[in-house]
């Protein structure tokens, strides 16, 4: 399939939050202000891109030759964890201002299902190098897109007088559900 269709399906139809249900913990948690929605999005995109490249190489040149593919989960999660640790240190020392704005999200990413999820989809549907890059890019941009739209909507919903038991998480889930239905119709 052409790269462009992979990108578009990853961005809209197979959106990482709405159809694959990945990354909902951070989706519900951080998306109350646009600022940290974008902050979270950028850091996730960065981490996903780099770890896709790393995991692709590891998988191709280490795991498959030694046909220990069952070790995939462990290696990938470790790669993500150390990579996040390294980036946190690097940013803290060199880009002080960037750390202030993005620093708080980095530890969150290790436990974010989206990152591992995107990498696993890449591996499972055995895309080649370029395809997996585009898929990673599409899914993370889809993540940012949905996070930003949801932050805007959340801002507006906070002000409504919803009945007490549906305030907060339930109404957020219902809105996300309606968004998922709409995205589903864009296929």
């Amino acid at each position, binding site marked *: 399939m052409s790269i462009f269709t992979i990108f578009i399906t990853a961005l809209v139809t197979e959106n990482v939050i709405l159809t694959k249900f990945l990354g909902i913990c951070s989706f519900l948690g951080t998306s109350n202000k646009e600022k940290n929605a974008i902050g979270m999005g950028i850091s996730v995109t960065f981490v996903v891109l780099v770890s896709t490249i790393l995991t692709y190489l590891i998988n191709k040149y280490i795991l498959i030759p030694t046909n220990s593919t069952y070790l995939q989960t462990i290696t990938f999660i470790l790669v993500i964890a150390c990579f996040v640790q390294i980036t946190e240190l690097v940013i803290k020392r060199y880009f002080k201002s960037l750390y202030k704005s993005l620093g708080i999200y980095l530890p969150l990413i290790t436990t974010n299902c989206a990152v591992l999820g995107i990498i696993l989809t890449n591996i499972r549907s055995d895309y080649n190098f370029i395809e997996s890059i585009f898929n990673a890019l599409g899914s993370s941009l889809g993540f940012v897109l949905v996070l930003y739209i949801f932050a805007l909507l959340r801002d507006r919903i906070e002000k409504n007088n919803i009945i007490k038991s549906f305030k907060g998480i*339930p109404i957020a889930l219902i809105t996300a559900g309606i968004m998922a239905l709409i995205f589903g119709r864009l296929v």
Partner: protein
Amino acid sequence: MKKVLNYLFKENPVFVLVLGICSVLAVTTTFEKSYMMGIVVLIILVISNFLVSLIRKIVSEEIRIPVYIIIISTLVTLIEIILNKYSKPLYDAFGIYLPLIVVNCIILGRALAFASKNKVFDSIKDGFKSGIGYLIAISIIGFLRELFGNGTITIMNDISSITGYREIIHVFNNSVIPNKLFLTSGGAFILLGILIGIINGRRGEV
């Protein structure tokens, strides 16, 4: 009865603490897959709590998270291998959500919050308690989604190779046309939202 209500309403990890719902929504298109996922998570939770509380003395503060992640991911890989060998269709049905249990917030959460501080027996009990809560929650959602979405309840289908017993109950004899909404991803979100809303409302009284 009080205990079951407690599992469901008081501190159910899914409905009340809203943790680990990444896997809950994705896998619950059939009743069988959901309770199987519930059992898998229950097992992993109990064992990981057990292991974590065992080594809680010797593990220092900074490297806690990587160590716990290694423990949980080894457990998950073990389960993967077993499932892959015995019931291939179930393994395919779970797809990428089986390895994603590693990142499931419940297991890591319970490990960090509880197991690393208490004695072995207590952490096992706690792991069991929240595991049961998770199992009940995920099977309710799976049951509802399949009942409305598909009009059938698959008690045992993919793992029939192990148990050798295949059972799918067709509830509505196509008088009521099944509402495909619950099978879609959006429907799962909405159903979970409504369930949590109702339970929030009921929690006020219970």
